């Protein structure tokens, strides 16, 4: 059922992009993430799997400090990107988020044209000096989002008028347009049909060339298809973290085995 991903062998030589050590997350009195330590490699797709409420999305949101927008949320421990602590007082979370892009569960295009959706990030960060450069960035991002051919004739049409799968690829292109180093994806395919899912998965594999990609997913098939490394979360703990092929064929922890064979969930 779980094929060994055909690209496993490519992961041999990689360097560590994100290093998390003893991360604790509290929502008020609720201890949501307990002692999670993980090293995420560059140019690799890392999948977070686990049952609902296990903390995988919460941990993902720690990586670009999106949890800062929630008042009652408190994060302890160290998270380093390229060796720099992102929870250091000198780090501006806004700058960090430009470096660590994020794609959400539900496609959330802004109520603007397709062009303006993509140009939003580059405009904010002053990445283009003139219109021609901006046009160029937009085209490149849309091409990388594998949606250019579908929208090139209607860049001024509202982004909300696209289909669900197109919207999600637009959101991925929007995240790519700011040229992040890490791309976080929180169940990016859960609102999509199988065809759109296949397109997005193909896209994720291509994005690996340039970024470290971290994807949260409920679908174990998807984790097996797109990722090279998989982390299994359960009740706020990181139970097991290893090569995807190992997790799905020969897990060490009995909980992991129970989960991937469908006995707990």
């Amino acid at each position: 059922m779980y094929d060994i991903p055909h690209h496993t062998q490519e992961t041999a030589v990689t360097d560590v992009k994100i290093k998390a050590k003893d991360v604790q997350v509290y929502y008020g009195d609720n201890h949501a993430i307990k002692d999670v330590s993980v090293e995420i490699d560059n140019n690799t797709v890392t999948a977070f799997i686990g049952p609902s409420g296990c903390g995988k999305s919460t941990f993902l949101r720690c990586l670009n400090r999106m949890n800062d927008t929630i008042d009652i949320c408190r994060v302890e421990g160290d998270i380093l990107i390229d060796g720099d602590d992102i929870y250091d007082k000198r780090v501006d979370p806004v700058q960090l988020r430009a470096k660590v892009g994020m794609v959400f569960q539900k496609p959330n295009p802004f109520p603007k044209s397709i062009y303006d959706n993509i140009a939003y990030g580059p405009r904010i960060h002053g990445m283009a000096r003139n219109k021609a450069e901006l046009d160029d960035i937009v085209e490149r991002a849309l091409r990388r989002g594998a949606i250019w051919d579908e929208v090139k004739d209607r860049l001024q049409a509202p982004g909300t008028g696209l289909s669900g799968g197109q919207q999600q690829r637009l959101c991925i292109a929007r995240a790519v347009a700011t040229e992040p180093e890490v791309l976080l994806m929180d169940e990016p395919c859960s609102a999509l049909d199988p065809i759109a899912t296949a397109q997005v998965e193909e896209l994720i594999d291509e994005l690996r060339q340039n970024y470290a990609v971290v994807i949260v997913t409920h679908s174990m098939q998807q984790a097996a298809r797109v990722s090279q490394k998989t982390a299994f979360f359960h009740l706020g703990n990181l139970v097991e973290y290893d090569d995807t092929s190992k997790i799905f064929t020969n897990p060490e922890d009995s909980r992991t085995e129970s989960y991937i064979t469908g006995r707990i969930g």
Partner: protein
Amino acid sequence: MPLLWLFLLVLAIAAGAFVLARTRVLTLSGQDRRSLHSLPIYYGSNAAMKSAVPALLMLVLWLLAQPFYVNKTVSDMIPDSAIVESSSRNLVLAEVRRAADGLDLAVSTGGMTEDEARNMQADISDVTTRLSDAGAILTSEITRPVLRAAQQFRVLNSTGYNIMSVMVLLIAAAGALWGIRETKPDFRARNVVEQGIRALLIAAASIAILTTLGIVLSLVFNTIEFFRLYPASEFFFGTNWAPSFSGRGGASDLGILPLLWGTFYISIVALIVAVPIGLFAAIYLSEYAGPKVRAFAKPMLEVLAGIPTIVYGLFALLTVGPLLVRVFGDDGLGWMQAGTAVMTAGLVMGIMLIPFVSSLSDDIINAVPQSMRDGSYGLGATQSETIRQVVLPAALPGIVGAILLAASRAIGETMIVVLGAGAAARLSLNPFDAMTTVTAKIVSQLTGDSDFASPEALVAFALGMTLFVITLGLNVFALYIVRKYREQYE
């Protein structure tokens, strides 16, 4: 029979029908309640509905129709000769009604027996004194035809009420019987009651719409009457507002332009004050304020909306006006002659409108989905960038709606203008001049003691109609804008 008693009797019959129908269906069904189509309460309600609704409708229709019939009959009784010079048939009819009321009063206080009150041959002067003794208000000595008419009026009314009572009670009883007879276990009482409820809802909606229509019609007829007396072109394009009241004589200038200009000038000043402050307050409350601040500040802001406008008027007259005079008056910059000015009224009206703008905008901003904000933050946007470029554009249609609603309020506002802006109709660009608005002038035209049929009084209706058309246009425009943006964003 007094109306209240009749009403209560009908309700009692309906209640009886309810109990009987419910009992009947329970007996018919025996032990097996599940053989009933509806719950027992529906059978009862059906019978009660069928007895009360037609009876009460009959009651209302009769009460509406009877005065017309009685007036018509009595009016025919009065010969033209009885109508004294310089008075009209209507005035004589009013006299008849007063005499009839007097007779009622006299009978009820015991000053007269019922037979005496009905006596056609009664001595007129005797009747007059007895009526006065009983405390009835009479303008002059009653004439023979008036007394006759008054007596007839009483007779007609009392027979009318008696027939009505009998009819209404009969209908109620017949309805109750019908409803009870219908009550069988397989009768679909629930559906019938649902239909009845639907009819009730439709009636409520129609009353709201018909009332609006009635208001418009009452304005329209008086407006047409006004334009018969005063040329429309001078009304709409006249730049001078100088009504002369009947005592002084002379022709009036009734040009609407100075009033419209005052209305718009004051409204614009008010909106310039209210829109930025209200909108910024809404943004702060919905995006930046913590739950504690919000729980405290939002109700505080909404208290502003609860202040009566006359209090705002006093604030304008006693505080804001003198304050402005001190700065812009002769001692200061010399632009302002008195405390009453466009600026005074506009500022205070703006303060009044802040809660409208802020409260509505706050709700609309809160309705923008969190996923939009997350998307923007995820791209490395700051909070203010997110608000300016994502949240506000998404909320724009609603905010425009809120602003136009505030504009309608500003245009319709009266008390603040009366106390804050003065009463001088004037076309001027200086915001420190006294001006006045359409609404304030409607008040002053109708509260004077001028003849109601004169153009000086009737102009109020034309002003009201113009104002109505303007606010209607504003609302249509608001809907258009909202719909246009919504198409783009959804």
